[in-house]
């Protein structure tokens, strides 16, 4: 009874007593799925040799693959109505999120707000959102190829040559322009993005996407500036959306979750154009 739930007939999200997402019920199954924000500590190098470059505009290189949790307790406020149910989450002073489910939707929307990333500790930070699940993906995940076909990726592996990965995190990062997904024989989890982001699956069942970064050193690949954008004297704030799909995997001959994802992808990336007109001079009858 202390858990919080939002959802509809098609998808239900449950949040635990600490305010984190803990399970998702969809497509006639319930899976343990959590979501959290973390940040990697950016590497600082001397830039004189390739293996010792700083993390910068061109490369993502965490320092000793160290990551920090943004929060271990999340403040949540819940709003429920006929059209949409929302959980407003506050992770820390600079990371917050709204998780929402619309009344006839088959997926959940995560609208994140990250920044300004603090740099008082003189440490560059690369912020990620991570979805953990109990799906046994066995090192395999899929990323899109510029919104078109999905490409199979395998952790610590390259299809056409033998590879020894020296950088466990960045060596497994891939570009995600529209979708990242994983599955096992029973279940599938996919995340649609609203912009190009880096992403990976560093543990079985887990998907992560980088949402924002603020770096204090140039990586010596050409731009000659650190990726430290500011506005009004403070670091930039980024806001965006992820759409989470959970359901039965394509290996089961039920409805195709991938087909639903494809339609949502089109409607997410090509939403309607909005034009506003001042109607002070028109009553509704005149407007009609």
């Amino acid at each position, binding site marked *: *009874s*202390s*858990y*919080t739930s939002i959802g509809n007939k098609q998808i239900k999200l449950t949040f635990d*007593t600490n305010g984190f997402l803990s399970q998702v019920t969809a497509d006639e199954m319930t899976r343990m799925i959590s979501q959290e924000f973390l940040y990697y500590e950016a590497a600082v190098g001397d830039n004189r040799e390739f293996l010792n470059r700083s993390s910068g*505009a*061109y490369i993502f290189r965490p320092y000793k693959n160290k990551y920090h949790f943004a929060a271990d307790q999340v403040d949540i*406020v*819940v*709003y*429920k*109505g*006929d*059209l*949409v149910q*929302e959980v*407003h989450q*506050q992770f820390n002073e600079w990371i*917050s999120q*709204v998780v929402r489910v*619309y009344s*006839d*939707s088959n997926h959940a929307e995560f*609208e994140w*707000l990250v920044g300004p990333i603090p740099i008082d500790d003189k440490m560059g930070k690369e912020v990620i959102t991570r979805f953990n699940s109990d799906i046994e993906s066995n090192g395999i995940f899929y990323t899109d190829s510029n919104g078109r076909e999905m490409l199979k990726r395998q952790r610590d592996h390259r299809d056409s040559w033998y590879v020894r990965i020296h950088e466990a995190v960045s060596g497994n990062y891939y570009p995600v322009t529209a979708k990242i997904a994983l599955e096992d024989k029973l279940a599938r989890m996919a995340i649609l993005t609203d912009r190009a982001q880096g992403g990976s699956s560093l543990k079985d069942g887990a998907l992560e996407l980088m949402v924002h970064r603020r770096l204090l050193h140039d990586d010596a*690949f*050409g*731009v*000659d*500036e650190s990726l430290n*954008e500011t*506005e*009004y004297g403070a670091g930039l*704030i980024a*806001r965006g959306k992820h759409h989470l799909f959970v359901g039965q995997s394509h290996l089961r001959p039920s409805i195709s979750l991938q087909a639903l994802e494809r339609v949502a992808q*089109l*409607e997410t990336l*090509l*939403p*309607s*154009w*909005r*034009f*506003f*007109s*001042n*109607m*002070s*001079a*028109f*009553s*509704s*009858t005149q*407007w*009609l």
Partner: protein
Amino acid sequence: EAHLGFMRETMGIMQHHDAVTGTEKQKVALDYAKRLSVAIRACGANMRNILNTLSLGSKQNELDGSKNNVLEFKTCTLLNISSCSVSETNERFALTLYNPLAHSTNEYVRIPVPDYKYIVLDHAGKRVPTQVVPVPKALIQIKHRKSSAAFELVFQATQLPPVGYKTYYIEKNSNATRSLAPTAMPKKS
């Protein structure tokens, strides 16, 4: 044509590998943003003309004083931070949705508004179910977001025609009861 040409040129510049990946210098990034902003504003004039032609068309002469019936169609480029000057400052406004997809769609629309008392009418004058939710606290607290929108008005735009448009009329309803105000669920412990 000059407006469209400027947009075409800007989109051409946006294909440069530094623009695609974000590896341009900061001042170049600012210039990209400026060019896009100018191009979108310029093409706003084209959109206004074509939407006025499509929406008023032959009816223009039937209405009193044709010049007064030419409408502004403004693009709110700050909708991504839940801000729009038209919906925040006017008690009556219209929202035109153009669907660029080749299939009909249903879409949940979120309009930033300063109050929670609004009604939405569709093109037939029929009232559309709405809900109001608060703008996230963290967004409101951002010092440099100059917006009076404390709420988002949510409704579902249904059956948006393929590569076509639909318009909704939105009006402040001072008689609305307080029950429309979004209320947070009791906290669980």
